[in-house]
Structures are given as C-alpha cells and as structure tokens.
C-alpha cells in the first residue's frame, strides 16, 4: 500500500501535465494525439528510439542519484552540473595522458578519475558546510560556474588540438573506450551511443539502495537528514555525514563523464551537458528520492528529450519549447502535489498521508 501511495501522485502529476500540454498543443494549432504519437513513437521505436532513450536516461540516473543521496542527508546539491563536468574532464584527462596503456588498466583508471573528480568537487561544499556552516546551495551553485569556466580554459589553452575551431580536447586513447551495448544486443545498431555506463547506472541504483537502507552508514546518513539534532544526540557525527553525503553525491554526478567521454564522444567536449545536473533535481524529486523512482523518472525525462526532436521537426506549429513546457509542467505538478492530495483525501479516496 505504501509503494502504491508513493507512485500514485507522481503518476497523476504526469498524466495531468500531459493533459495540460495537450490543451496547449491544441491551442497552438496541432493535433495533440499526433504530436504525442510522434513523441512516444520515436522514443519507443525499436531499436533506434529505445536505444537513444536509454542513452539519454543514463546521465539523468546518475545525477538523480546524486541529488537523492544529498537530499537524504538533508542537503540540496545544486552542484551536480559542476561535479559532472569535473568528473568528465578528469576521466578525459586520464584517457589522454595515459592513452597508451592496455584497456584492462586504463578503463579502471578512467572510472576512478571520474569518481574522484566529481567526488572531490562535491566534497568542497560539504567541507565548507561542515566546518564553517556556509550554505551548500550557494556554494554548489557557485562551484558550477567555477568548474565550467575552469574547464573551458583548460580545453582552449592546453588540451585542444591546435587550430581546431571546436571547443573539444584531443581524443582519448583507444584503450579507454568502453563497449557500446550494440555489440551485445542483437538488432541494436552500434552507432547508438548507448554503452556500458547505462549498466553501471543501474548497478549504482542498487548500490545506493543497499548503502542507504541496508547499512549502518546509510542509516546514520538518513538519520542526519531526518533530524540532525536527534542524530547528534544519538552519537552520530553530523559534520562527518555532511561531508560523506556530498562526496558520494559528487562521485555519482562525476560518473556522467563515463557515459559521455568513455562511451560516446571519446573526448571532452566543452558544454556537453544539457543541464543534466539541474534536471537531476527534478528527476530525484519526481522519483520520490528513491533509486527505483529515479530510474522511472529518468526514463520519463529521456523520453521527452528523445521525442522532442521529431515533435519539433515533423509537426507544423509545435516546437521543441513545448516539450520543455511539458517537462516544466510535470515538475510543477509534482511539486504542487498537495493540490492533488487535498481533494483525494476529502473524498475519502485516500487517508491523508503523514509525509
């Protein structure tokens, strides 16, 4: 019953958002059924559509998990964007610097670089909060700017192939490429960039779940998030938990770099992230801060991202902005969930939840 209750409100929010979006499309002058047909048709067509949808979901699962872990400790990590950039650059740097090594050595090194890079960038606001009490929202968002600008500088002046007008580094060594799933799954063409990072993302969901709900450390972390004073009283070091949570959060965000650099572009590309870090906040929120919920909501956002392109191209009036409106509406409805909770409770359909 509790799982059902967790699921129903996001579900209502999604359906309501599609309904509102449909009215909007109608007003603009297109047929909503046709537009949604394009959206879902391209997102679920086998193999290209599904391949791309899962590829788009991968970074969102990572950032959704990152936001989730911090949130469970009572922290709002708005810095996933900066952390994923640092992670991506770190992994690219290892891939470029040690390009000659064998894959058995190089790939683990690249993975560790992404995790350490993101983790370090996440730890900074954690330490600042634990030591000096400075607010993590401000610090993480400022660190985003620093990360982006710093990496633009390194890309432009130190790691670009000379004369290349595109802001990207030189390619990483062949040994650092991770396999695309097209190599394993029959019928899935290899040009689809869906790669092993997707599997890694699913594994991370499992690990985060086990960590948070099946270990002592996870319990301490969640206790801190629920009530820091009580946790402190119970002998948990709140400061330590804040640092741990932010580090894990950053490390998860940093793993986006594995998908992007080792699995797709094989180089660091300046500005590659389509606001994954910020969408991650919505993914975690919509997923009720649970790893399973994160997978589901990451898929939903990936469907919108994949389907937005044909909706833009093959309808007469609807542009990609409408898909963004849809995304925004979903978030709005989820955030304003009490709006739905109220009437349902009133009509006795549901007992008022204790959340």
């Amino acid at each position, binding site marked *: 019953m509790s799982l*059902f209750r967790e*699921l*129903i409100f996001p*579900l*209502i929010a*999604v*359906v309501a958002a*599609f309904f509102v979006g449909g009215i909007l499309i109608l007003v603009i002058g297109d047929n909503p*059924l*046709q537009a*949604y*047909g*394009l*959206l*879902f*048709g*391209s*997102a*679920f*067509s086998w193999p*290209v559509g599904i391949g*791309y949808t899962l590829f*788009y979901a991968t970074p969102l699962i990572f950032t959704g998990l990152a936001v989730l872990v911090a949130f469970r400790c009572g922290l709002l990590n708005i810095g996933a964007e900066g952390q994923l950039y640092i992670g991506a650059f770190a992994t690219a740097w290892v891939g470029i610097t040690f390009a000659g090594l064998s894959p058995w050595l190089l790939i683990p090194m690249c993975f560790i670089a992404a995790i350490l890079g993101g983790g370090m960038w996440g730890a900074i606001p954690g330490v600042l909060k634990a030591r000096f009490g400075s607010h993590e929202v401000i610090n993480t968002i400022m660190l985003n700017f620093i990360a982006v600008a710093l990496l*633009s500088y390194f890309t*432009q*002046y130190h790691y670009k192939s000379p*004369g290349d*007008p*595109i*802001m990207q580094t030189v390619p990483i060594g062949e040994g650092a490429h991770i396999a695309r799933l097209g190599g394993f799954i029959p019928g899935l063409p290899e*040009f689809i960039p869906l790669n092993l990072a997707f599997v890694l993302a699913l594994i991370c969901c499992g690990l985060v779940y086990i960590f948070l709900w099946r270990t002592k450390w996870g319990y301490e972390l969640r206790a801190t998030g629920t009530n820091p004073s009580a946790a402190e009283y119970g002998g948990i070091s709140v400061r330590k938990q804040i640092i741990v949570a932010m580090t894990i959060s950053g490390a998860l965000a940093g793993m986006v770099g594995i998908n992007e650099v080792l699995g797709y572009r094989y180089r660091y*590309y*300046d*500005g*590659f*992230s*389509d*606001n994954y870090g910020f969408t991650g906040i919505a993914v975690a929120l919509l997923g009720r801060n649970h790893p399973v919920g994160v997978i589901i909501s990451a898929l939903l956002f990936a469907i919108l*991202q*994949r389907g*937005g*392109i*044909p909706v*833009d*191209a*093959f*309808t007469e009036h609807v*542009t*990609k902005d409408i898909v963004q409106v849809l995304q925004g509406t979903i978030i709005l409805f989820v955030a304003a969930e009490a709006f739905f909770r109220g009437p*349902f409770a009133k009509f*006795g*359909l*549901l007992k008022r939840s204790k959340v």
Partner: protein
Amino acid sequence: MKSYLVFVLLLVCLFALFVSGCNREDYGADDKSKIRVGIVFDIGGKDDRSFNAAAWAGARCAETGKWPDGKSCDKPALGIVLRDIEPGNPTSIEPAMRAFAERGYDLIVGVGFAQTPIIELVARDYPNIRFAIVDGVSSLPNVASLVFKEHEGSYLVGMLAARTTRTGTIGFLGGMDIGLIHRFKEGYEEGARAVNPNIRVIPNYVGVTDAAWNNPGKGKEIALAQISKGADVIFTAAGNSGLGAFDAVEQQGMLNGRATHFVIGVDSNQNMVKPGFVLTSMVKRVDNAVYEIIKDVVNGQFKAGFHVYGLDKDGIAYAMDENNKELIPEEAIKQAEEARKKIISGEIKVSDAMMK
C-alpha cells in the same frame, strides 16, 4: 479499494497514450514523391538575424519562393518538403540529423562548422543520403562543403574603411579567436593597406568560447576601447556580439549630419540596424548557397566536395542600399568594384588565413 480503481484508471490512460504513440510510425505524413530536405541549425537557432537566419531564408526560398517574412525572393520555388530542427544543445545535434536520415530524407543540411564531426559520423552510416555542411569542410563522398571566401569580401570592405577613415586608424572586432575569423581580419587588413599602406589596424576578439558570439556588452566595451585609441571605422565579425559595436559608434553621435564613427556589419545586410552609422555590411550569402545546393539535389546534379562561394558567384558581397549610399563617395565604390573584378580574375590575390 476505490483508490486502486483510480490507480488502474491512470494506468489505462498512460497505456492509451503509449499505444497511440506506437501505432504512428508514419509520423508527419510527408509527401514522399517530393524531394525532402531537412535542415539542422546551430545552437543559435534560426532567428539569430545573422548566420542561421540566412540559411533558413535560403531553405525557405527553395520551399516557397518567398523569404521567411513573406516577400518574394525572386527565385522559383522548387517544390520540396522542408523540415527544420533547432537542437538547442550540442547533445541533440546528432539525433536531430539521424531523425531525418532514419526517414530517408534526400538532403540534410547542417549549419555551422561545429557540426562537421557529427555530419561526418552520420554521413558514413547513410551513404545514400546527401549532406551539406555550411562553413565546414568534409571529404566524404556524400557531403558537400559550402564554404565562403570571406577574405575577399573583407578585402573590399577594408578598402572602403581605409577610404572613409579620417584618423588613419581602423578597428576589427572578431568574435571567437579562431581561423575562420582570422580570415576576415587578414582580408580586411590587406584591403585597407592596399589603399593606405600606413594605416593602423587594431584587432580584438571577444573571447575564445562559443559564448563569444553572444556577448554584445563586451563587444561594446571593445569597440569603445578601439574608438578611444583613435579608430573611427570598426569591422565586426562577431555574430550577436557585433551589435555592441553598433551601439558604441552611435554613442559617438553625428557632426554636421554625418556620423563621426562607422561600423561595418557582417553575414546578413545590417545596414538598417543603425542607419547612418553603418558604412556597409560584408554580406555572406549563405541563403544563396543553401538554395543552390537544394536546387542541385532537385535537378539530380548534387556534387560532393567543395562548393566555394566568392565574389564571382554572388556568394560574398558588400551591401549598398538607401541606408548607406550617402556615406560612401562614388570613386571609392568605383575603386572597390575594380578590385572586385581583379580579385575575380585573379589579378589580386588575397591571402587566406586558413590556408597557412
């Protein structure tokens, strides 16, 4: 129990949505008897009033025989199906191109040099589809590279700038510090030197990242700095950032009905942006190039490789209209026209910064 009912109902709703999606493999029902053209814009989008806008104008002209604003473009409509995508972020460019390729479009146009590696990737997977890249260079057998001799046009506006300046100092405001923009700068310098060997040229760039195309504030700062060093004509090749230089020269005001400082526009005809202050615009006819490549595909004459647009094929020009005809003396134009003929005939060689 009632709550379960609601839940099931919701699931049914969602399911209906998905099914409605899955049954529509026909997508937008394009007329397959016609030539189908897909165009993928740069991050800037089709309303940037400059480079992307010009590509869109050319494609629109091929589709309807009219410019996007509804005026006739003096060329026949080619009876094509035209679809466009504004990717908005770098991750969406590749799937946008593939969206057209998967549906078997006849020609896919990528706008902007940044799309070159992506268009090559997609073109390898679809050898039977024709591609065109504006401003980029590819050697694949199914990709046409639409490039422009920006240095030649810059040479001519450099001459006009040198004829106009009273201080003997002119400015150049570049966007991103890259080879393509150096090409504008060197042509401009050479043209100016051809008129006045002692002229002083002050070159500056807005930045080194993509953001350099979209920072009018910094563009204005740089232009004001150049003016304070004595520059009284400034050539901009900086996309949206260049509009800052327009503000800067307007701020200097007029003396006896004539502006004291001038700016030279770029890509599209920008003479009407600040009439009286814009000496001329170095126009890059991306619209012509896009129209021509579509025409080639319609006529079955598509050729891969370089399509070079210079002064000869109306690919590059300086814009003269009612807004600036008072600003440039007859003889200056006569001189520029002579140089134009000499460049076309090869008598004058303008050095190309990208070929070094």
